[in-house]
């Protein structure tokens, strides 16, 4: 028996197949302009006859009519993170168009959360826009900034930061230095935001940026609390959805 978890985020749609113990398959697609297509495509590619229960989450969670249940990304991210690393007591997620921090209790239940969904600064979108100006692929970010000295980016707003970077480039500033400045800026902002929850225990960092060591270590230096990730960080929401689905099936049995 398997359960399927699908996370329809603003940038990517992720899905995992769970057998009760481990994640047996993963899939990821760009959400693109048509989130309904992406979520259905991913569902079809992962679904098989042994899937007993499907849970959808994320912005587009309502687009998958065949799902047995829809659960918010807050609950799913928390559950997924706790599955990947049971020692954590909080989750910080930088998504494509929002940012959230979730506080867990010792039983790994959500006790409080905050969301920033009003402003692009502090989200994956910010990094995306900045990398486009630098004409660099985010995939190489770790090696790109290695050994560089960060340039302080002062603008809080995506639009102003964009023009700040354009003028830095015009002055001949080093691209790697600028990129590191951008990373510092988003991590600093994320840590101020997350600290509103009075975090104390270890943190799980999820979302697309969590796969890059530079984001993890920078975030950790601002938060001054151990920050963990996992190779499956990006799938935390989908994993949580699948895990919750599995528990539901077991309880029903």
């Amino acid at each position: 028996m398997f359960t399927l978890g699908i996370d329809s985020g603003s940038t990517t749609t992720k899905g995992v197949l769970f057998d009760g113990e481990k994640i047996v398959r993963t899939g990821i697609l760009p959400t693109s302009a048509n989130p309904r297509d992406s979520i259905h495509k991913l569902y079809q590619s992962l679904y098989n006859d042994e899937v007993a229960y499907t849970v959808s989450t994320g912005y587009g969670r309502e687009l998958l009519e065949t799902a047995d249940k829809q659960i918010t990304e807050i609950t799913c991210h928390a559950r997924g993170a706790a599955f990947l690393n049971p020692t954590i007591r909080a989750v910080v997620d930088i998504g494509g168009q929002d940012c959230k921090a979730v506080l867990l209790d010792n039983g790994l239940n959500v006790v409080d959360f905050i969301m920033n969904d009003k402003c692009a600064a502090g989200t994956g979108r910010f990094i995306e826009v900045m990398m486009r100006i630098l004409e660099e692929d985010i995939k190489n970010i770790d090696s790109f900034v290695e050994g560089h000295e960060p340039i302080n980016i002062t603008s809080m707003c995506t639009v102003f930061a964009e023009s700040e970077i354009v003028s830095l480039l015009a002055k001949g500033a080093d691209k790697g230095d600028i990129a590191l400045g951008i990373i510092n800026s988003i991590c600093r902002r994320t840590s101020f935001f997350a600290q509103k929850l009075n975090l104390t225990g270890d943190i799980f960092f999820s979302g697309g940026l969590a796969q890059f060591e530079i984001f993890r270590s920078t975030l950790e230096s601002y938060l001054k609390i151990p920050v963990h990730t996992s190779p499956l960080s990006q799938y935390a929401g989908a994993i949580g959805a699948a895990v919750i689905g599995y528990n539901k099936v077991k309880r029903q049995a």
Partner: protein
Amino acid sequence: MQIKKELPEIFNDFGEMRKKSFMAAYELKQKDIPFVGTFCTYFPQEIALAMGACVVGLCSTSDETIPDAEKDLPRNLCPLIKSSYGFAKTDKCPYFYFSDLIVGETTCDGKKKMYEYLGEFKPVYTMELPNSQSPIALELWTKEVIKLKEKLESHFGTTITEDDIRKQIRIMNKVRRAMKEFYSLMKLEPVPLLGQDMFKVLYGSAYKFDKEALPGEIHALVEKIKAEYEQNPNKYPKAPRILVTGCPLGGGADKCVKAIEANGGHVVCFENCSGAKSFDREVDESNPDVYAAIAERYLSIGCSVMTPNRNRIELLDRLIDEFHIDAVVEVTLQACHTYNVEALSIKRFVNEKKGIPYMAIETDYSTSDIGQLNTRMAAFIEML
């Protein structure tokens, strides 16, 4: 003075709904009933009622007139203030339009400064509301209540006797008891009606101008709901019981209530203005000094414009126990400093003293954040 009796020039451009509410107000005006427009729960209604006036609430909660207001007022101002000012400027609200006198209070900074501009094109009288509840404050507020009576007498060329006031105190206390009886229905588990429907009644009651008839109507409604409940107590499934507190909700922010109820929660109690805050306390009928009795009752309202604001905590404490509340949702309006600042102490009280979850949402009267609101509320209720 002459009271205003004719319809506004732009009347014919209005939609049906608005025409209807204009006509309802128009008919009252034809009976020579003066309108006193108000903005706040601190307004001592009994004084105006004692001269036979209709007391109309002018707090507007739609974003329709905000662009008009922003021509004069800063953008980052509370939407309630902007919306209200916008309606006054555009003659789109019958109650504004027909108000023969508007009475404001020095509550929050945005409102009291807005009254200065409002006074340029409407007759406005501002009462000085103290921002604490000390004995000195009460002394000032008692004088302000008497001054209001004198202002109404001179403005409308009438006399208001203490007996008239005493009579209105008794009537309004009956209204308060009736409204309390109504919202106390929500102590039932499972609930007999949806929070959004309860809110309509609470909010609508302010626009029922026959205050003597109101308790009877409310009582009949209570009986009807009780009878239906006996027939079918499980109409609404058991769900987490939510208390809503914070800024006045009105029509524009009821999206928060809907978001709670669409995502598995049940709003069983409103502490806001229009809710328990407006009805909880009665005026002391045994006090021979009617002004002191009125001043005492109104000044003790627990709004965040007061410092400290212990009475809000005291009321929340009671409501959370009486209504078996599972979680508290605070709805604040953007740029409402007093409520947004006070949110932390409410969170502390709710989490630490009452041991239940608390969530704050900051919003306005637009519909642009409905998606995010739904996610937040769903996640909050999943956590209960």
